[in-house]
């Protein structure tokens, strides 16, 4: 796990640099320059941020975006589509209403509330643990996108079909 954000919600520069470097090395190996790979600079940053610093999730997002787009560059729109798909996938495992209450608590406090669900949520990566320095916790950014965690927003649709 790479710490890509700080507990106050701002980017962690070193972590973001490391995540970008992973993608850049992959691009170099495939002999693709970064510029034509992404439409604008912050699309790559967006993908890195939404991976939560989890390398496998980063690669899933990039791969999903590539297969959806069919050609480079990857646009912000296709990156957002990949994130929505990942959110859907996380939602499948979050089948108990109690999960979302615990997730809201973690989102507020950045600590584990000591519930029966803590370990399960860590295990299925709905909650990410950042260890450098004092350990703290954050809800996976893809999970944070779920409507159930955003009660103030109006529902605009169902899960994809």
């Amino acid at each position: 796990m790479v710490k890509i954000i700080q507990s106050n919600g701002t980017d962690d520069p070193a972590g973001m640099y490391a995540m970008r470097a992973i993608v850049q090395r992959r691009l170099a190996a495939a002999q693709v320059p970064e510029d034509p790979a992404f439409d604008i600079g912050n699309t790559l940053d967006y993908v890195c941020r939404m991976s939560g610093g989890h390398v496998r999730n980063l690669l899933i997002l990039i791969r999903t975006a590539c297969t959806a787009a069919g050609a480079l560059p990857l646009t912000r729109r296709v990156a957002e589509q990949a994130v929505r798909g990942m959110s859907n996938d996380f939602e499948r495992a979050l089948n108990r209403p109690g999960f979302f209450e615990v997730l809201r608590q973690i989102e507020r406090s950045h600590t584990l509330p000591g519930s029966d669900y803590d370990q399960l949520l860590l295990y299925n990566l709905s909650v990410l643990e950042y260890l450098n320095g004092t350990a703290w916790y954050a809800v996976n950014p893809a999970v944070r996108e779920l409507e159930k965690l955003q009660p103030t927003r109006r529902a605009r649709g169902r899960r994809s079909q």
Partner: protein
Amino acid sequence: MPGKMLQQPHTDINGVLDQLERVVRWSEEFQLVFVKCHHPVQQEALRRAFLARLHDKRVLEVVLEQPIVSLLDEITALWDSAAPPQAVCVYHLEKSINEQREASPVLGRLNHDRDLLRRAVPATLLLWLPDFALDCVARGAPDFWAWRSGVYEFPTDRGLWHVESAFALAPEASALFSLPLEDKQKDIARLEQLLRTARALPRQSKRERETAAHLAAQLALLYYSLGQWDKAQEYLEGSLRLFRQLRDQKGIASAYHNLGLLAEARGADDEALMWYRKALALREKLDDRAGMATSYHQLGIIAQERGAYEEALEWYRRSLAIEKELGDRVGIARSYRHLGKIAYLRGAYEEALEWFYRSLALAEELGHRSGIAASYSQIGVLYTTRGTPEAAVAWNLRGLLIDLELHSPEIRIDLHWLAQQRQQLGETRFFGLLREQLSEKDAQTILRLLDDFASSAQDDAVETIAETQGVQAAELGDHTNATSSEPLSAPPAVLPPEV
């Protein structure tokens, strides 16, 4: 089940096929891909389209017709090392996800075997699954799920769902009760699949929600016909919720009535009466004549069971009048049978027999198997209690054979009366009468059933019978054309549910 997203991703069938094709073409090593497709018929069309796109690739197809425990074993058994596939498509893994859902053994094995699978399958592994099964994999095999490269979702073909649902709902409910066990089970699987698909349809129209309510109600009746009360209750309550949301008064009345049937089957007559009255009040308000006839009928049964024969007769006559008015011949046959019961209970045996024969003739004309079985059994009961068990054996036996075939809860009633006849006639004479109708082997099977029935508590016996039903029915064969003499007796109270 589906939740809510901020925005619905754009999906179309060709777009998803494009992506799946790229997934296979762009990889030469193990990767795990899930393909969501609800509908078996739609899946078949998509499968063909997908394979056509990959005509230049070697694709191994693994069709899991039966439940499995190890997917690794299934794939390696078919793997050709000389010409290794570049993609492996697995279909119907959902058949291995049983009532234990995410705790199904196959999911535990997938979680355990994921690294073995990666090494054994250096190709794109595509698992085609309906929505509920994907949820089960995510929850029951989290490590395996975590290795996915992507989940590609085909939108449900609504048109196809409408056509299939209309087809599934076409049979008259009364006909459901006359289906053989195997057909009932197939219907249950098909209806449950359609209902799952309905739940996954985004932005359901009113018509789609109505269809879903009727699918749930139909499932409840099928489970009821198999004596699976809890499942029947679950689906009935689900259909009632939907009918209430839709403000569908006719549907609500039907759900009330069927909840009454369930309560009655469980012996809760007061509760049953409450439901029947609620249903009748609504039906009278709606002037739903067919519904009123079934309500009258069930109220007649409750009155009859309480010994209020005059009241019961009045309900049955009212029911019969409407059935004749509507030309509902299944209903007419049922009313004849119940008029016969009242005559029997009042000691008017000749009249009772006449009603039973009239009911039987009509049920035979209609090919209404559960009605035929009920008439056979009634006649057998009448003869038994009139002291002529010799004449009764063939009737109850014929009723039993049909009920075994239908896996009907009435089996226990047939067995009860056959046991009475055995006791009255003695072992030798009873067996001789069985042999007039059956082969030696089949007659022995009946004796074993009766022994099981006698040696255990009634409920346990029914369970045993249910478990062995498939074997027994197969052993017995179809003897429903066996000859029999005339005859008569005290009928079981349970009726086929409303239809």
